[in-house]
């Protein structure tokens, strides 16, 4: 005669598979090699170049933007012009061909994320992107799931400290409205 435990030995793994299939995996930790071996640890960490110097779009609009190669050469015409990685950038500028960076942070297309209000509200870059200034090769820090977004948006209505203070209270509780991100 078989005991209930024999039953559970067979059924439980099946149940586990079902549960796993139901939860959505994320791209968290994705750190692909990039065409140019650029180190944020060196530039943002060591040299303390502000994020917005290169990713100037974050203040102005939806996309933070990958800086045009010409921005790199603002410094690298003088600094380390002969570094092999810098040479790749200069070659790209000379050829007029963009560098095919591999995109790391990808939100689903039906979510309209806009950098501008987040920067304006004082959300630091690291809140979402993690300690980029310590990353040699950038990896995806946050899961970038809706649940993760919502977690912060829910707090937005409660938080009164730095950043969220700029949001009038009447508007803050709208941060969980669907249309904030989906339209």
């Amino acid at each position, binding site marked *: 005669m078989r005991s209930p435990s024999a039953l559970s030995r067979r059924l439980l793994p099946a149940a586990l598979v079902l549960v796993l299939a139901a939860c*959505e995996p994320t791209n968290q930790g994705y750190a692909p090699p990039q065409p140019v071996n650029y180190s944020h640890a060196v530039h943002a960490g060591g040299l303390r170049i502000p994020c917005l110097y290169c990713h100037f779009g974050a203040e102005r609009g939806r996309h933070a933007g990958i800086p045009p190669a010409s921005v790199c050469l603002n410094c690298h015409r003088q600094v380390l012009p002969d570094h092999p990685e810098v040479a790749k950038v200069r070659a790209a500028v000379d050829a007029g061909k963009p560098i095919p960076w591999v995109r790391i942070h990808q939100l689903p297309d039906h979510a309209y994320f806009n950098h501008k209000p987040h920067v304006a509200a004082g959300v630091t870059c690291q809140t979402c992107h993690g300690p980029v200034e310590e990353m040699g090769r950038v990896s995806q820090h946050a899961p970038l799931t*809706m649940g*993760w977004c919502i977690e912060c948006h829910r707090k937005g209505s409660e938080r009164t400290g730095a950043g969220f203070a700029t949001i009038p209270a009447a508007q803050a509780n709208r941060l969980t409205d669907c249309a904030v991100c989906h339209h």
Partner: protein
Amino acid sequence: MSASAWTPDRLGPAELWPPGEREPLVSDSLDHGEVTRALVAPVEGRPGKGWWIAFVTAVTVLVMGFSLIGWTVYKGIGTWGLNRTVGWGYDITNFVFWVGIGHAGTLISAILLLLRQQWRTSIARAAEGMTIFAVCCAGLFPLIHMGRPWLAFWMFPYPNSRGSLWVNYRSPLVWDVFAISTYLTVSLLFWYLGLVPDFATLRDRARGWRQKLYGWLSLGWDGSARTWQRYEKACLLLAGLATPLVVSVHTIVSFDFATSVIPGWHTTIFPPYFVAGAVFSGFAMVMTLVLLTRRLLHLERFITMRHFDFMAKVLITTGLMVGLAYATELFIAWYSGSRYERFTFWNRAFGPYAWAYWLMVFCNVVVPQVFWSARARRSELVLFIASIFVNIGMWFERFNIVVISLHRDYLPSSWSHYTPTLVEVGILIGSFGLFFTLFLLFVRVAPVVALHEIKHTLALQKEGAHGTH
């Protein structure tokens, strides 16, 4: 049930059958072994020509239906005849139709069990099977009617990475999901529970893979008195649970319409009206099915004309109930004074779909009146034709509710017309293919009349006969 003494007087209206002429429900001459052999024969023997013809036909229709479902999923719901005004047509009509069919089984097995109606025994198993297959057919339609059926699992509240976005428990469709899945589950459990002793019988007669199969299915059934004691209690409890459940399911299905704002849908009469209609259509379908099965599997000794007599009386009763509901709807529409209500019901009776309305009235109210005649109640041909009419009529009842209410609602500028496409018609026919395929497989796998219950009935019949004399 087992605890109380059963007397034949409780069988039914005794006045129809004067003492001495009382017709037994099951032929008295059978002993238990004969019952076993007669009822397991379709399972153990090779299927006959009739079965094969029916099965091949059903599977062909099923394949056609599923191909059309595949086409719908591939191309989009646009392959159907729905439009901006009429968002539901055949899909939900079929859904409600099949759910309604699915009510008779539980009614017969649970409610009649609680009411101690012994005549249910012979048809309960078939009716329960029919219930489950009908609910399977019904469940198909809400699934495929979705624009994105591959996301149907969103209808279930499961933890997710969207901040845990659950479901909207205010939506009658969510109630439907819970009602239909609960109903299917409980019906399956109830049905399976009834099958377990019969599987054990099959197991003990079988060799080889069949023995293994039925060994698995019978869960190590031993037939001990202690098991039977708990088994009977559990059956009663399940019957007690299934009774409000079966009423709740069609009530909730009616909420899909009753809680909306659309005139013709927004109607408080719907829950009882739907339940009565469900019993009506379910019994009609049981009648159709059992008439066929009885012939096909030679079960005349177990399913006698007396059973049909009872069923015909149920039909006439429930038919009058739906007739009353139709009349009440019309009266209330007039009495409400609401211009929208009045128009909607005027439009049902005299609008572009008036033919469907009057077809419904004819099939559901007029046709069952034939059963006032005792001879009609015992004529297989009349029973069969009338039951088909009721099936058609009840399908049109749902069509009338779904489509005629929608196609002309509040805003005349949006009034429209709905004509089904061949794809929709094909899927409806295909759902019958699914239903009959499952039923035909069922009669080959399990005894279509519950062995242990028939034996029990026989024993009680004899005991009762002794007791009264």
